[in-house]
């Protein structure tokens, strides 16, 4: 694969420091639809470029990708902005797609990319919902969402769990696949993957605790509207669809 292609793929399947481009762009774009489009399209461009050339990915790229993923997983721990958290998690997850560039066919590769991105799309929508209600989507700013907007909080909890690869969401099975692919050939990569997974959980719990825990802010009570029942069911349907599709594709419903 020519170097220019590698650089280009490194931009879309983010490798540090090229990954900073996506994160800067995501933070600059404020409109929720544009953010969702960015999340939906970005890794697929990288995958399309990779599959358009038949060259093997060098091993050092995989090490670089894992280092990028680890770096962003670690940095997520100190984030307070929900939007930024979302883009860092996307970066950390998409960098892992380099691991399967050699043994997956193109369509399956795109399914993987979509599987890990889908919960992030829902989180982007929820982040926009928070901005609409409070003017900003930051942890430890208002807190106590479980008290003031319980339905929204419930959906937020499940979406964050889905985003950090909790079973039975697609991320869980994709992480299992990554670990299976590396466990024999690259044990160090396996340990790195497990460490990254742990950091995601840690970051996810910190984000949740900063948003839903605590007494309801008196300013919020009665002023902030909760998620309506229709939206709540829509989120539930999408999440159930994600679970069913991932269980089906992994062979659990055969």
């Amino acid at each position, binding site marked *: 694969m020519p170097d220019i292609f590698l650089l280009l793929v490194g931009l879309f399947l983010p490798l540090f420091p090229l990954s*900073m481009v996506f*994160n*800067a762009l995501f*933070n600059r774009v404020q409109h929720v639809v544009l953010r969702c489009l960015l999340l939906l399209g970005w890794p697929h461009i990288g995958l399309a470029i990779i599959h358009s050339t038949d060259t093997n990915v060098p091993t050092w790229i995989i090490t670089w990708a894992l280092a990028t993923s680890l*770096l962003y997983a*670690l*940095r*997520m*721990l*100190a*984030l307070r902005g929900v939007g*930024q958290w979302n883009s860092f998690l996307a970066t950390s997850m998409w960098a892992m797609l380099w691991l399967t560039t050699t043994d997956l066919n193109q369509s399956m590769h795109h399914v993987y990319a979509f599987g890990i991105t889908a919960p992030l799309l829902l989180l982007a929508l929820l982040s926009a919902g928070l901005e609409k209600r409070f003017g900003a989507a930051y942890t430890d700013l208002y807190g*106590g969402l*479980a*008290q003031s907007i319980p339905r929204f*909080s419930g959906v937020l*909890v499940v979406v964050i*769990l889905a985003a950090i690869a*909790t*079973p*039975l969401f697609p991320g*869980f099975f994709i992480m*299992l696949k990554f*670990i*299976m692919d590396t*466990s*024999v050939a690259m*044990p160090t990569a*396996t340990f790195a993957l*497990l460490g990254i*997974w*742990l950091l995601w*959980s*840690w970051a996810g*719990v*910190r984000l949740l*605790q900063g948003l*839903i*825990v*605590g*007494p*309801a802010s008196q300013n919020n009570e009665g002023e902030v509207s909760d998620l309506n029942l229709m939206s709540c069911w829509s989120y539930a349907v999408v999440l159930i669809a994600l679970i069913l599709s991932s269980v089906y594709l*992994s*062979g*659990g*419903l*055969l």
Partner: protein
Amino acid sequence: MMSKLILFIILLPVLSALLTHLLQGQLGRCVARISVAATLLSVILSGVLLWLSLSGHLVGESISISPWTIIYFDSLSILLALVISLISLIVHIYSLRYMAEESGYARFFMLLDLMTASLLLMVAAADLISLVVAWHFVGVFLYFLLGQDTRSPSAYRYAFWTLITYRIGDLPLVLAAVLLFQAYGTWSLPVIFEQLNQSPNAHSVFGLPLPEVIGILIALAAFARSAQFLLHTWLPYTMDGPTPVSALMHAGIVNAGGILINRFAPVFANTSDVLQWVFIVGFISAVIGSVLMLVQNDIKKSLGYSTMGQMGFMVMECGIGAFSLAIYHLIAHGVFKGTLFLSAGSVIHKARKDDGVPKDELYTFVVEKRPVITRKPWLLMAAITLIVPLAILIVSHWLVAEDYFQKQGAIILLFFGWITGAQLIFATYRTHATNLWRLVMISILSFAIVILGYVFISHAFDVYLYPDAAFREKLFAAASIEKIRFDILVALITITIVVGWLVAYYSERNRIGKHPRYTGRLWTMFYALISRELYMTDLYTLLTRTILSSANKLNIWLRWN
């Protein structure tokens, strides 16, 4: 057909959780009755299944639904399904009134149901993915149960400790699952175990035989779940959660380590050194848990460390190859610790009226006109600790097996009974009594029951859980150590018990608390160390802050992109 009952038992709490969530608007607080009824039904069905299993009406071992949805209905899963659903039912009933004033009443019962379902799936999972999923879910649901009060940041802080320790424990299990799949090409545990037994050394990984690596990983996962030393700090601090959750956690969830080790018994039977390390970790946890328990002034925290000590014992039992004994231990511990937690509230309530500080003996005799209380004779109590186990050893020789004296595992079992019994005798020796001989008789009886429990009940559990005598021998063989090391260990335990009695005698003669200057200083230093819980929590807090501050610095350097 009857074997499919186990599937229904697992799905029942899931269905109940769903109904509880959907009907909470219509039924209000009465919705909890759905949850209780479903759990009661689970108990009845589990009881039926156990009866079928004991009477030999169940044929087969597992049901396969898909490549990674395989459910065991073997003796281990059936027995534990009954235990879990029974403990869950007690917690459900207790919570009906206990949680009545709390917000999120329906959510609490929904989470209890989901937790019960996860635990049931964990014990019945016959494939690696279901096991990993259930193992992971237990941690997630426990986090939300402990954080039932969403207004309390401290409840969530400690719930986070639990979750992160559980996640640390999830990872070795995931790795073990993946390595087993890579080696055998299937997720099915029965198939893997069968192939493993046929040729244990067919595969190697990281330069070691596969069973050794898997054994280490499974043990690590079990250590995190069962609060073994270095991974224990979450357990005593999770007391901000509701009392029923503490009861469920200490009576059921924390035992998962022992269950996991038992599930992977065929792997451990083919290891050479892993069980010895398991024993050492269990021993350290038992000692440290028991010591830390003694210095706590908060009843729930004290019970938390007591659980750590008990889990240490359970892991030690696995470490000596007495796997079924660990199951007996976890059931017995679950019952008594659950009761203690559920009654902790009334103890606190009683303590508000009476501080429990013993009154001066002269005061009670002269003012309250109560008879003088006496302590049991030292020599008699010391003699009981020696004579009763010896008598039971001889009886066991007649009743259980002719060659009982020659079995290393049996001797160790007896030693476990002896240590536990000696602890009991020490405890009763410290209590003062008005009717001396009545207490002596109770002590002898309790001691005999403890040792009989270890010898006969463990034998009954052995026969039910591991009917293959050759496999039981193999487990003991995997855990056995060289004769000289074994003899040294036996001698050390004997010396510890004898020294314990001598210290008790010496303390009584010189009145406790009056130490010479040098030993007094040492004692104070030791007390300071254990009252700070060996500085483990401080160390972990420091480590956490360092990681978070590094992450923050990285973000600043990289301009948050």
